[in-house]
């Protein structure tokens, strides 16, 4: 399984979070973007919208670039 970062996905794509990096990793984890969680990209752009569980988050690309994911095929 190859990993990529969350900012490379397109709307409607789903993926499983593999790792979160950067200074804001604790906040992202607390907001629901934890390793092993499935995420769906709702809107791309700057900022973008992703959904994890029932949590919908608006995230800057600087954040999504720090989130490593395994895309679902």
């Amino acid at each position, binding site marked *: 399984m190859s990993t990529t970062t969350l900012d490379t996905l397109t709307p409607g794509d789903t993926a499983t979070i593999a790792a979160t990096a950067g200074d*804001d990793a*604790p*906040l*992202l*984890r*607390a*907001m*629901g973007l*934890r*390793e*092993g*969680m499935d995420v769906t990209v*709702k*809107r791309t*752009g*700057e*900022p973008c*919208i992703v959904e994890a*569980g*029932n*949590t*919908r*988050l*608006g*995230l*800057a*690309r*600087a*954040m999504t670039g720090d989130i490593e994911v395994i895309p679902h095929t």
Partner: protein
Amino acid sequence: MNQGEPSNHAGQDLDGPVRTVALVGQPNVGKTTLFNRLCGLRSHTANIPGSTVEAQVGRWGTSRVIDLPGTYAITLKQPEATVVRECLSGQRSDAFTPTVVLLVLDATSLQRGLHLAIETLAFGLPCVVALNRVDTARKRGFEIDERRLASWLGCEVVSISARSGHGVNHLQPAIAGARVCDAPLPNTDDPGVCDDWVDGVIRESTPRPPVLAADHLSDRLDIAFTHPFLGVLVFGLVMAGLFWTIFAFAAVPMDLIDTIFGHVGGWLASILPAGDLRDLIVDGIVGGLAGTVVFLPQILLLFFLIALLEDTGYLARAAFVMDRVLRHFGLPGQAFVPMLSAHACAIPAIMSTRLVPDRRDRLAVILTAPFLSCSARLPVYVLLIGVMFADQPVIAGVVFAGSYALGIIAALGSAFLARRTILPGTARPMVIELPDYQWPSITAALLTCWDRGWLFLRKAGTVILGMVVVLWWLSAYPKAPEAAPTAPTAIAATVAPESVAPSPMEYSFAGRIGKAVQPVFDPLGWDWQLTVGVMTSFAAREVFVSTMAVLVGGGDQEDHAVLDRIAHAKRDNGQPMLTTETSASLLIFFVLAMQCLPTLAVTAREAGGWKWAAIQFGWMTALAWGGAWIAFRVVIAAGGT
């Protein structure tokens, strides 16, 4: 405009509560809705000692309830998390040390909430878990077995709907019998173990598969509301509607307040014997309070509408959309809420910058928010634009809108500069939760309104009243020898250019200071009277109109006759006091200048030092002087009056 500060004596009016209950939860879980349902009007905003974070404190039966700030995790480095951590560990004052924790979890985002539960329970305080929004979760096919959840968490779990009130009556007995968690909890330092534990809890206490159906309404609305172009358009329409509502609906109560104060002043003037005491009460206290309290309807409406918008979930989308725009000026999307509030009053706006997570971002918002035209500038705009364009309502409207636009441009431009000089860097990358859309709660919005209105009135009754009395004293003393027998209201000397003896106002401290300072403002075309008016308005802008009324004589009620007198007042040399060019320079000055002592005090407190207030004051005043000079010169070049 002046909005109150939260009190620092939380709960002194609440005698002998049996226990202190702290509400802990993540943002958007319905914590505040629950607080409002429990305490209703028996609550007030309080500053948590030793921090810039505020919390609602209220009374619920025999309990004192503290609505601690929402935080995603207690271990984060954000100020909200720090405050929650310190309150739970008893490091704040006794008044903010809970004896019982009421942990609010959202049934629709249980996984996230359980991580906060581990951190909270680890403090070893008696705890009850309120599982909110169970009705919504159930509708979307997600059932939670509260008994199993309770056995995992080692404390009582009560399923509730804070919005409908369902199950809330079970909280009181649960709190009375709250116990310290008696179940084995994972070590908070080991994220892997915590993740496994949370997965286990969800697996055991929910039906399989634990899947929540999607919220289609939010999906559909977000297509429009978060769209790069459509979203900005919607935002523009919402804001236009908001301001239209505020100005349209506030006009009637504002007139009413004005009339009531006018009658009270008139009545007091008729029953009190002429003299200093009457002048102090009628001109100083009643007149000064009228000029402040008259903005109460606008403040109430603004907070009511913002609370409604926030409750629907739209405000988070607006911040999301505005992030794209504000980022170019070095401001984060979250800055738009304070910037919106600043159009009513800079003080609550600066206080609401606590929403902005990054310190430098927050400082940039605090420093620039007072550029936005607050409602205290309104009467001044009305006066000056009325003088300039008396018979041209269309041009007057355009100039009016232009004044607001100039404030916005100055704020954004200053933020842009600040991010390249004193606050280097770019705005913190956006991370914002977009909660599900829902119908707003009118009750909750009314409670917010009541709370904010009360803070504002308290401010008006203390700080502003004090300033008004000082200003009155400065303009009434020392008495001019052989002047008219009574105080400034009786002066008409300004229309008599030949008069040799100085008028009482000229002779007073305010007049002397005005004359001494006037050369500074001479390039802007102001005489000593306008200088006094502008200087007194440094305490609070709205004072300008009443000061000018006092200067030109004839009572300080802001009725049309007084505005007319100001418009046609003369200088010492017989020339008109207000010409098109002096009105233009004054208008620009009032748009840009920092003329509000309470705002400076709040800036110093929120930014963490008087240095920031000094920077704000210096920059805004310099820009205002420069802008006013340009306006003066441009109007003269264009023909003037």
